[in-house]
């Protein structure tokens, strides 16, 4: 489910970074409050655990085996906010050092596998284990199944909207090329049928083992406020609308923006640029040598500003 | 006795329902080298963590240089002064090495305690040089051998220049050469620093320490006296399960004698 670099348009990437920055910030503050100020190593080790758990292949009926992501376990053990940070650390490590996922898509991957999966997994687990207090492993398994599928759905959405929001000459896709009608089934079917059950199985196995052996306390804040789950549902509603709205693939950009309501201005503008380029004319007026020179000049001016900013920032940083 | 560094009165500690340290009282003078010996699970490590104020006694009073040590005072003004004066070398070097390079590892303590960058750099370079590990400076700590890891862990604590050094099982997992290195280091600093060493390596107790405290399996103090006396008391050592009767075969003769339990170091979780 790790989306590599180059699959999402810069606009999409930026939107998810912008969305995740406050989440990371709040998460780091929440962790300081709810866990303890000095629990930095716990987060790091939570991340390391998730990383290692992905290495384990779980045997499933039929002689096959698959690996899990572990977001739900980490969220159940550490609490959802710490879970978000721990999973993001895992993803950052995978993207940077092991070329699994990407740098520009790190925001989106964190949204799917850290944010969506941790919160939905955690609160579903709390809600379900309140309903069936004696069958917590089952509750954890079901929560993990839902969480992994929700994050797969989120990833499918992100990939599937690419042909709608960023196209080049003659409408040819520039990033992930398949429309929602293809991306959603292609992404969700394996998760509904294979990875979801593996995740559910792995999670409930671990939870039942930990419960049986005891010795590991859940570190997250105890209260499972129902309102937080509601907030999560509200947050996920746009995704739900996308999933159940109009027939696949017939969305225009207008309808998409009406549905989501917040197609960012940057993304629109970005399309504008691509639109100009699509006519195979250079984007600056008139073209020709002067135009090119003018364009190069403004690019040079821009990079001079960047250098100046970095220089000043370095000066400030030192103090 | 010289100036008192530590004084413990009736200190106890329990993990949940299980008692780990029971009603322990003793004092440590400046410049002493004190061994804490006892069987696995007798509470040596826990006692050291209490002495480093990492965990707090559930009962009893502990003072450091005349000041009362508690969860409250360590969070207040005492905390910084205490951390500058007391260094703790963990049994497992891996938990102590978490920085990108050996140099950063050495710098971590002094930097947290607010020393200036230049001062810290100078200190780390001198220390690497003095301990003969200057070639390791740029290496990531997790790529080191276990002996090197131990050296770096000790160096990272020495970098703070503490007055008191708490060493938890320092010879565990060390090859003979590294053990010699450690003996020489402690010998060199003996008298200048106060050492409290938790160990079940009896050769270390005899060679390096002046005084020994024996913890029994009920987690209390079974004996407290000069190291030579303690090591001479075979019954005490047998009773506290520090040595055990051991069948040995020399040719055709089987004879029974006391033997330290230190031959392996299997008490760490697998």
């Amino acid at each position: 489910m790790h989306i590599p670099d180059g699959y999402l348009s810069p606009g999409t990437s930026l939107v998810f970074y912008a969305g995740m920055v406050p989440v990371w910030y709040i998460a780091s503050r929440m962790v300081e409050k709810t866990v303890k100020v000095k629990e930095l190593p716990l987060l790091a080790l939570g991340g390391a655990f998730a990383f290692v758990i992905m290495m384990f292949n779980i045997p499933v009926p039929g002689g096959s085996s698959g690996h899990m992501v572990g977001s739900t376990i980490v969220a159940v053990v550490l609490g959802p906010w710490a879970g978000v940070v721990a999973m993001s650390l895992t993803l950052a490590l995978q993207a940077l050092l092991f070329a699994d996922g990407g740098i520009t898509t790190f925001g989106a991957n964190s949204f799917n596998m850290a944010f969506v999966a941790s919160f939905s997994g955690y609160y579903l687990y709390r809600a379900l284990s309140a309903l069936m207090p004696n069958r917590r492993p089952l509750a954890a398994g079901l929560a993990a199944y839902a969480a992994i599928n929700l994050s797969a759905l989120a990833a499918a959405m992100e990939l599937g909207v690419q042909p709608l929001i960023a196209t080049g000459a003659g409408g040819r896709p520039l990033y992930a090329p398949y429309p929602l009608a293809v991306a959603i089934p292609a992404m969700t079917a394996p998760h509904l049928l294979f990875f979801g059950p593996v995740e559910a199985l792995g999670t409930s196995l671990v939870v039942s083992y930990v419960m049986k052996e005891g010795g590991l306390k859940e570190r997250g804040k105890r209260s499972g406020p129902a309102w937080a789950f509601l907030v999560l549902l509200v947050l996920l509603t746009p995704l739900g609308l996308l999933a159940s709205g109009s027939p696949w693939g017939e969305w225009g950009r207008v309808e998409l923006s009406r549905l989501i309501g917040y197609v960012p201005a940057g993304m629109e503008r970005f399309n504008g640029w691509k639109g100009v380029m699509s006519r195979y004319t250079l984007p600056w007026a008139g073209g020709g040598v002067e135009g090119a020179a003018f364009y190069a000049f403004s690019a040079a001016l821009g990079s001079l500003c960047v250098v100046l900013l970095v220089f000043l920032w370095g000066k400030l940083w030192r103090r | 006795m010289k100036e008192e560094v530590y004084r413990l009165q009736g200190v106890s500690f329990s993990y949940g329902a299980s008692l780990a340290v029971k009603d322990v009282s003793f004092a440590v003078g400046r410049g002493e080298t004190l061994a804490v010996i006892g069987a696995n699970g007798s509470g040596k490590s826990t006692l050291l963590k209490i002495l480093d104020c990492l965990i707090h006694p559930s009962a009893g009073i502990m003072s450091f240089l005349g000041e009362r040590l508690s969860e409250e005072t360590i969070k207040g003004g005492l905390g910084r002064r205490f951390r500058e004066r007391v260094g703790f070398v963990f049994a497992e070097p891996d938990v102590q090495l978490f920085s990108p390079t050996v140099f950063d590892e050495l710098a971590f303590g002094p930097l947290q305690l607010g020393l200036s960058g230049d001062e810290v750099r100078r200190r780390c370079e001198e220390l690497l040089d003095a301990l003969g590990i200057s070639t390791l400076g740029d290496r990531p700590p997790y790529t080191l051998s276990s002996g090197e890891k131990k050296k770096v862990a000790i160096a990272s604590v020495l970098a703070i220049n503490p007055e008191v050094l708490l060493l938890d099982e320092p010879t565990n997992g060390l090859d003979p050469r590294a053990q010699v290195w450690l003996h020489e280091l402690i010998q060199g600093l003996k008298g200048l620093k106060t050492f409290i060493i938790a160990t079940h390596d009896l050769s270390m107790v005899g060679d390096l320490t002046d005084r020994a405290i024996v913890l029994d399996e009920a987690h209390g103090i079974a004996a407290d006296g000069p190291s030579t006396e303690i090591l001479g008391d075979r019954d005490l050592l047998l009773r506290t399960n520090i040595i055990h009767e051991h069948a040995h075969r020399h040719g055709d003769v089987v004879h029974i004698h006391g033997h330290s339990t230190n031959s392996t170091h299997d008490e760490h979780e697998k």
Partner: protein
Amino acid sequence: MKIPGWLREESASGRGNEAAFKGEGFIDRTLGNIASFMEGAFDREYSPGGVLQSIEPRARIIGIFFLVFAAALAGRALTLIAVVSLTVVLALLSGVRIGRLLKRTMPALVFTSIMVAPISLSFFTPGSAVLNIGGAAVTGEGVRTGLFIIARVGAMSGLTALLMLASRQADLFRGLRGVVPSFFVTALFMTYRYVFMLMKTAEDMALARRSRTITGTKLREAQGWFASRTGLILRKTASIADEVTLAMVSRGFEGKIRTFESKGMRGKDLIFIGTASFALFLSIGL
């Protein structure tokens, strides 16, 4: 100590049979995963004397990220070719062998090639057919679309790979510290560091199982094995976390990491950032 009689006897052979290894594929796959992780982690020859290596880590990261974004923005093949060429030139100047660069880029390229292959069919991309396979036609437009996406993925992952190959890990984390809040960088490094420790434990567990498994195993037992090992690793995780916290507190950590103040950037570093941002600005319009 009394040794049981059977333990003194020679071990019996021939009781298990070769075919009985069936069902242990998940162990091999787990070990395979761990092996490829270790290879990925250690498969780097850091060569010190190159151009990229001489750039201050912070500037190196910022500059490469600018180039990655340039590749992300590119709307034409020409821009992507320029970025790829720049990557190759930088690699050569930095003493990073192209083979190694390719090796790290390969997984993403292979995956993407498979993923985009259907886009070349007329079903997805209408256009002039260049090849007919059964009922489906491969269109020129489709092929171009697919190649373009592959080129972009290659350019972007190639740049990331170059950054990794031209940086010592310590430099990388030091550089990140200038870009990301140090809370996260420290946590990230510690994650990295303890992944190794836990990974070693996991490997030992899997190897121990493989060495003991003689006859085929039942699914339930195999799943129980997974559960108990994961539970153990989880508990080990928690106990290491506690110890590490204490070890940090013992050395004066109070919740906020203090580090060396970073050195200022030199002219060379600023020039590198400037050049990279120039490429980024150029790519916006190209």
